[in-house]
């Protein structure tokens, strides 16, 4: 549209339902120290009322029309969606456009939602077995780039965010030229686009914000840390820097991850989980369309079974990784992983919601929704030599950051100070 809003529509007529999604180029990568977590807190504020609607009324109306809805915030985008009967498309469009234009931000709503988000932080990070370990991993792996702070933000920042911060965030990041609208389902594409134009057409674009994203410099040696907390088991979480979403090396890297830990014939399962050395051992890096916009992290972690030495387990994990840097995958292993990719990709396509995410997130993260068409062919074209090359390039010890969880007693836990 002339105001910069991009509309993507896919007609799928299998069921009389649609997925309506609005993806904003607003993620924690756009934040600055001191206001970490504002992107996610603001996502909550989008449900707290507008000129037309009272707090949470948006959700109530969508559900009362047979719809399900939610939103999620990541490092790179904030996304809102409604899955609902196809004849309710106009309702979703009207309500989404209205809160984009007329959100009502009040101190009272901010205070209630601040406590809700702090409760969510306790749930996901502070009181979860490994949440704080992963936070530490990102904070150590990234020294300059905004990926070093968690999407949910630091608790001290959540306590200090102001209504003015929210207003500014709304003004800068919630504009039609920062958004992509996706409609997938039982619609006529032309008519659906007209409805979107009707409700969003009058909105004005905003000048792009001045970005202050400092790129991460190459890592030149392994970084390690220890995190002590009460835990039944020891574990380690490691990360290697890898490229961002548009880089072709992500496909052989993901095939490498799958060879390590997807399925019960994978190397990690056979060596660590099956014989009971590790409760869990995984190599993962997200999957399309959730590859990170800027250079991201390939994570490898293992949770040691009780009485298993963490040091020995970690050493054995690195030996498995080294094996992939020495020898190419066998033709059988490569064929197996490619078939796993094909199957998983088709499984994902069963839902309209995931089809919408593929298009919308490739548009907002990589700048071109059409890239998702090449996802599967790129996996198909990966060779054993590609996997060997990316293993040697990215899985170097110098590019590695490791955080170990060391269990401590209640007394030691208390002596180390309160976690938040």
């Amino acid at each position: 549209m002339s105001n910069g809003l991009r509309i993507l529509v896919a007609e799928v007529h299998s069921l009389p339902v649609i997925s309506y999604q609005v993806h904003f180029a607003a993620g924690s990568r756009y934040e600055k120290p001191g206001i970490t977590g504002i992107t996610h807190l603001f996502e909550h504020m989008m449900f707290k009322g507008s000129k037309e609607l009272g707090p949470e009324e948006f959700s109530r109306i969508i559900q009362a029309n047979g719809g399900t809805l939610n939103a999620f915030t990541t490092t790179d985008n904030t996304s809102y969606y409604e899955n609902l009967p196809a004849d309710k498309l106009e309702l979703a469009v009207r309500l989404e456009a209205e809160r984009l234009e007329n959100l009502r931000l009040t101190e009272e709503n901010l205070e209630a939602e601040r406590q809700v988000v702090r409760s969510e932080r306790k749930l996901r990070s502070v009181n979860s077995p490994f949440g704080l370990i992963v936070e530490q991993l990102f904070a150590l792996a990234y020294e300059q780039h905004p990926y070093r702070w968690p999407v949910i933000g630091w608790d001290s920042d959540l306590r200090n965010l102001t209504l003015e911060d929210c207003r500014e965030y709304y003004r800068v990041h919630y504009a039609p030229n920062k958004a992509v609208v996706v409609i997938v389902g039982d619609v006529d594409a032309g008519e659906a686009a007209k409805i979107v134009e009707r409700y969003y057409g009058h909105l004005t674009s905003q000048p792009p914000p001045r970005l202050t994203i400092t790129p991460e410099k190459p890592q030149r040696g392994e970084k390690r840390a220890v995190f002590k907390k009460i835990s039944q088991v020891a574990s380690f979480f490691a990360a290697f820097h890898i490229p961002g979403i548009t880089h072709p090396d992500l496909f052989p890297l993901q095939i490498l991850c799958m060879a390590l830990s997807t399925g019960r014939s994978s190397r990690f399962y056979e060596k660590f989980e099956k014989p009971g050395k590790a409760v869990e051992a995984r190599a993962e890096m997200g999957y399309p369309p959730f590859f990170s916009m800027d250079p991201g992290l390939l994570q490898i972690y293992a949770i040691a079974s009780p009485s298993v030495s963490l040091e020995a387990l970690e050493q054995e994990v690195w030996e498995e990784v080294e094996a992939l840097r020495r020898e190419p995958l066998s033709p059988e292993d490569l064929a197996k992983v490619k078939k796993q990719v094909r199957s998983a990709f088709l499984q994902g396509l069963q839902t309209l919601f995931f089809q919408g995410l593929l298009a919308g997130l490739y548009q907002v993260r990589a700048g071109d929704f059409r890239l998702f068409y090449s996802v599967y062919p790129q996996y198909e074209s990966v060779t054993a030599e590609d996997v060997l090359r990316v293993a040697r390039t990215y899985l170097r010890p110098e590019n590695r950051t490791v955080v170990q969880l060391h269990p401590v007693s209640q007394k030691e836990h208390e002596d180390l100070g309160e976690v938040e």
Partner: protein
Amino acid sequence: MSAGNKSRPFSLPVVHSYVLPGGPKVYAVPRPELPLISIHLMIPRGAEADPQGKAGLSNLAAEMLTLGTTKRSASQLAVQVDALGATLAARSDWDATYLHLSGLSEDFEVLMGLLVEILTQLAFLPEEFEELRRRQIAALIQQKDESQIIADERFEEALFQGTPYDHPVYGSLNSLPDLSCEEVKEFFEGSFCPEGSLLVILGDVKAETCFRWAEVNFPAGGQGKRWETGEFSALPVAGVKTLLIDRPDLTQSQIRLGHIGIAHSHPDYFSFEVMNYILGAGGFSSRLMQRIRSQLGYTYGIRGSLEPRKRPGPFTISTFTPTETTYPCVQEIFSVVKTFMAQGATDREREEAVNFLTGSYPMKFETRSQVAQKILQAELHGLGLEYLSAYPKRISAVTLEEIARTARTHLHPQRMLAVVVGRAEKFRRAFEELGPVEMVS
């Protein structure tokens, strides 16, 4: 198609059925849009059949289905499954055991062959059993760090004490070390494909192909006996009893409140569903979410849920809140429940609940596994497939009066069990105002 126009009516997927002589009933649901296949076998015997002190037996038997046949070791089976890009999983829940295979439709015959091989040539290798048990024990030890799981487990154990539902499906650190491979094998042989077993095949394959294949290849005549859990009554709870699990390292408490509910086959199940949408299951439309989260900011999430089981399952209000708001949060929950029971629902609440439950119904048939689960649950609970087509009408027919009666009949705030995992010493005294408080490990 529609865009601002009337939506097309929703039609349930076409389900073809066939009773295999001497075998399970077979359902075929052709879904040719994607080249996928999804195979689900359900044996109507689950953890309810675990003998006293043998918690986890049924689930171990299910897991052993994935760990090797007389033709293939566990590792060889895993290689075969992964090479097909398939998944193989088996698990028990309370009322049934499930074996699930999914993959690409080009491998239909190979996958079905694997299913038959698993059922007829199961190896029950002692070394695989030992490894499996070791893995499960390690997982249970790690699980002690998960306050949500501790809260769920303690809640159900206390609620169903002395009944077949009183132990975790996956067993416990007390029961698992004493179970033997022989016991697991016997359990499996006693439950293999009795009357009431179902095979559901969905995907890019014709119904006739499924039936013909099953007729030729599926093993006839399982020896298992159909399991029936008799009527049971749990120990009556008088007043509000609180169990506190002390975890001084937590900054937020996990809370479970509730009592035994009604079975899935109970005639009030539909009105309970509408009633509970308004009280606790309707997200931001629910009374609990509006009060506890939106107005008070005590929690990120709160939900009331009734677990559908053959016998009455748990009705649970689940939430979490920082230590300092733990007792106020529980007080508010009671207040919301009692107010709701006294006032009943409004016309608008009823209408919105009905619209949500009926309007979102088609979305529950989007994936092959969703459709399979709907079929299996309807049959398991003796509701029949007509339940699936009748659901929107039955929900729409629930009246305000029925909602009020259901709340009065099936909600019992005066005799609830409360389980809280958190910094017990910070709120123990406060909970004593509600009734007896017990500290448990």
